[in-house]
């Protein structure tokens, strides 16, 4: 369910390093399932800085508006513009087409502090 090779935060965001200093970030399957149908995603502009574990945007579902927390620090290189018209991509494909930002990671050691897929699955089991 939670793909290998990704890094996971306690706030239920994931980051995938592309090996050349950038990472793609999004929210996990668990997060989208708990939020329910997503209707709006607000993300920072390209060129803005995001800080690890600090607010990077907002996500609105039929249930509630929630903050999005960045799993890494760095400058925003690209954001998923498709989410503007199709926020349901977050529900349909949280690890694929529902990605949110591509970030130029300022401190790659931050990624080491995140959880592996196995650790995150154990974390979810402990939370339940």
């Amino acid at each position, binding site marked *: 369910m939670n793909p290998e090779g990704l890094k996971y935060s306690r706030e239920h965001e994931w980051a995938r390093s592309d090996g050349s200093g950038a990472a793609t970030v999004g929210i996990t399957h668990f997060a989208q399932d*708990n939020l*329910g*149908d997503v*209707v709006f995603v607000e993300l920072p502009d390209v060129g803005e800085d995001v800080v690890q574990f600090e607010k990077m945007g907002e996500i*609105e579902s*039929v*249930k*509630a508006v929630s903050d999005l927390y960045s799993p890494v620090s760095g400058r925003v290189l690209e954001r998923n513009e498709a989410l503007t018209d199709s926020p*349901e991509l977050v529900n349909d494909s949280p690890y694929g087409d529902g990605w949110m930002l591509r970030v130029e990671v300022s401190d790659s050691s931050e990624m080491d502090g995140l959880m592996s897929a196995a650790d995150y699955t154990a974390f979810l089991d402990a939370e*339940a």
Partner: protein
Amino acid sequence: MTTLFERNESERRLLLMDRSRPGRLGTTLPRLDVPESDLPDGSMLRDDLELPEVSEGEIVRYFSQISQLNFSIDHNFYPLGSCTMKYNPKLNDEIASLPGFSDIHPLQPEGTAQGAIKLLWELQEYLNEITGMAGCSLAPMAGADGELAGMLMARAYHLERGDDGRKNVLIPDSAHGTNPASAAMAGFEVVSLPSDSNGNTDLDALRDSVDDNLAGLMITLPSTLGLFDTNILDVTRIVRDAGGIVYGDGANLNAIVGRVKFGDLGFDVIHSNLHKTFTQPHGGGGPGAGPVIAGPRLVDYLPTPIAERGERDGGGDERFSLKRPPKTIGRMGAFHGNFGALARAWAYIRTLGREGIPQISEDAVINANYVLSQLRGFYDLPYDRSCMHEVVFSASSLRREHGARALDVAKRLIDYGIHPPTMYFPLIVDEALMIEPTETESKETLDFFIEVMKTIAKEAAEDPDLLHDAPHNTPNTRLDEARAARRPDLRWRRGSE
């Protein structure tokens, strides 16, 4: 082929524009009795806006039919947590409609509206007495407006003392959702405080968060968990000792009114949602009333105007006037708040009196605890302790074991003629179902509700799809809420569905 039954149903659902017939009128204009003049330049007139053409009888029937689709407290039980949907006595409306209250203008001379200003003054006095505070401004138009007023007062207080480094406002995670927005709008930084395992403010986290940057704390009492924070005296002392202002969100005043006074607990400023605790129809977005009520430290900063009682005049009558507090933060809106809402609250307080007001909180708390005790075991109780005016259950187990969510339980309640409780709030409770029975419901109504909730829990186990597809007995069944939010279709077009 369409049966006549189906035709009846579909014709009752026709929108006003679809009932329009060219040339049909609801009124006949009188003969022209002024000189004719030319219309303005054609570019100022638009002819693309279609207006409905229907007879008077048709329009009355249209709106009456729509009103029957409404769900209201006058029709059904409405346990919508946090919103306090209690019965609103009709006497309140009668008093607010008296010509001396409803046919006056805010700009007419004070001497010609003495009764209305006296009502404002008396209401201020009642609220000061009920909350144990020093002074009150009735100007804020709603609860969140009162919050903003209170935080602007806190800001003015710190700035006047040259304390311009106090930026942080602490807000427990069990606070009302509007609190962080109000603090941010007043120019503060919001710092969230966790609750402890009992649902009280975590005192260790609070002690760690107070420093020279502390502007104050906003706390909802009782909290949105429906719990009275038993640490409250420590909370207010820690904040005040650190130089902070203690703000009380009094939206849940109905749980403690007549029994506990905010002033006695160390609060500096609070607001009260009069439309909730002191009844008036609400839930459709207003009008509300959110008076801000201050203790000695902040009373001079209240929003203007304040009603005052002056000297007796030559004839021995009391004189009332509107005054500006000495260091006021200014106006929260035009004139003096929503007068009609204030008049209804005055009427409710006068109706109940000193003996009746404590019964508001007594009955509200007993009713909520009755529901809690009867539904324990059927739904999860994340904080299993005596509650105040509302009880927060969780549908976590139902979801895990049967795939039925809080949303599904809420929708199924509609089939039994009961308004859904507040769902998915407070955010710190998973699959939250927040139930506020209010003090105006009978034991028979509560027993029916309890029976229905137990039945729904059983249905969830036996036939979860019954819940997934609910409601079944309403003119519209389960709506596609995601599509409604993503692609709202709000405009009528000729020929459209």
